[in-house]
């Protein structure tokens, strides 16, 4: 299961860093470039996963 969560974090990083976007994308969404929104959502997902692992998962382990 640990490997599964590490893979989840890696996937979040891969999606959040905008290496795969085409060079001239300039869609603006709620004032932010769209790739910035994806980066923010990535960070939010990592925070949710961390909270889950801290509060739920490790409680089960104890």
């Amino acid at each position, binding site marked *: 299961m640990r490997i599964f969560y590490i893979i989840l974090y890696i996937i979040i990083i891969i999606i959040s860093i*905008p290496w795969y976007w085409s060079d001239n994308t300039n869609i603006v969404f709620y004032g932010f470039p769209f790739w910035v929104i994806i980066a923010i959502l990535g960070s939010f997902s990592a925070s949710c996963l*961390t909270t889950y692992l801290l509060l739920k998962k490790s409680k089960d382990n104890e």
Partner: protein
Amino acid sequence: MNNLLPLGLGAWIFISCYLLSLLIIGWYAKKSRKENTLNDFYLAGGGLGFGVLFLTFFATQYSGNTFLGFTGATYRIGYSWILSLHFMTSIVVCYLLFAPKLHKLSKKQKFITPPDFIKYRFKDKLLTLLITIIMLLVLSNYLLAQLMAMGRVMQGITGNEYFYSFGVVSLAFIIIIYGTMGGLRAVAWTDAIQGIILIIGFSVLIIILFLKFGSLIDATNIILEQDKLNNTRKALIPDAQTCRQWLSYIIIVGFGLSLYPQAIQRIYAAKNLQTLKRSLAIMSFIPIPIMMIILISGIMALAHINGLEGVATDQVFGMILREIQNYSIIGYGVSIIILSAILAAMMSTADSALLSISSMFTKDIYFDHYDKEASEKKLTNIGKFCSWVFLIVLIFLAIILKNNFSLVALMDRKMDLLIQLAPAFILGIHYKGLQAKPIFWGIIIGTLLALVLAFYDFSFTQKGKVYGFHPGLIAIIPNVFIAIIGSYYKKIFIKFT
């Protein structure tokens, strides 16, 4: 911070009241002490509850540089500085790897300082001393940078160059007085006040920013136009080099900052495991509002304040404050709260660093190497004395190095050094087969390689980075390799002999 309007009497009264409240808290913390022991002084008796623990984690992790330096960074590189949101989140993810286990162990073995874990785990004096020295060097440089920043803020507020030294001395003395009166209890309680001021100040800042500069859509469109004209990528997709740097920051800051000695001591000081986990869970969401406010401040400045380049971009936060001060009487009030918040951020970082330095010097150097018979009372007094000596030396350095930025630039190397300690702490807590000597040589090789890559101008390095990656991150590869392979072969060698 040299762009502010002169502050009125009301503003000075507000700032003075805030500083006075820190001294009162220090006095109250002293009254609340339960015993004259190292545990009570440096870890508040190991009884920090959820609210205080969370706020002290927050105030310690977000320094003055987070607000001044990061706004400047956004101004320089644009939206790509959203990477700071990722690396601040990665710190809590890295805590997940070792904090719960380390906390349980610290309660059982009564750890006071980070090297206490190394002593217990590896039972090797040389390795413990090496780790203590690296941590002391990193923290001393960090504390010096905070003292110099406090002086510059005071210089900016008064508009008078001579107030730099006054700022360094007066604020440093306030820190040492409440720090030596109440130890971590005083530091954590003042951190809590400082954390609250930070949250209030920056929540109001974002509202005023939109009222003053208009919508974010307008700002982004202006930057997109500037990108087309100047052939820059401040709102466009970042280039490959920036993406590599982004990944490098996530890893190096995550591992490096989670190993800050003062952060490790807060893991020890948590009341219980549940309190620690709940505080860390809230901490994992904190980067989103804070980094967003900093990013938006930098973006607004990039769109509406033109002409700053190079080192001058670090002045951008001061310029935003001046715009807010000019905006209205409410704006003036908000700028005072934000100034106090920045002072608070610097002081809370400085006080934690000072307390950590004092604890490691007392416990891991004085007690371990000079006076094994010293009583807890004597050690606590030596810790206080050592805080005074360290601070006076650093005040002196901060004043004579006033215009010397090269020493503070070394601070950029702290992550490169701290990450070299990750195998000892993070692998050490999980992998029972890890041996002291391979860890020792791994740290030596890793540290030397990181410093050589950072300071020597190779054909493949650019601005101290290797293809966008931090030298510390490259150096951690041989470090981990030596630690694991060395431990494996040493185990086999011992088995056969």
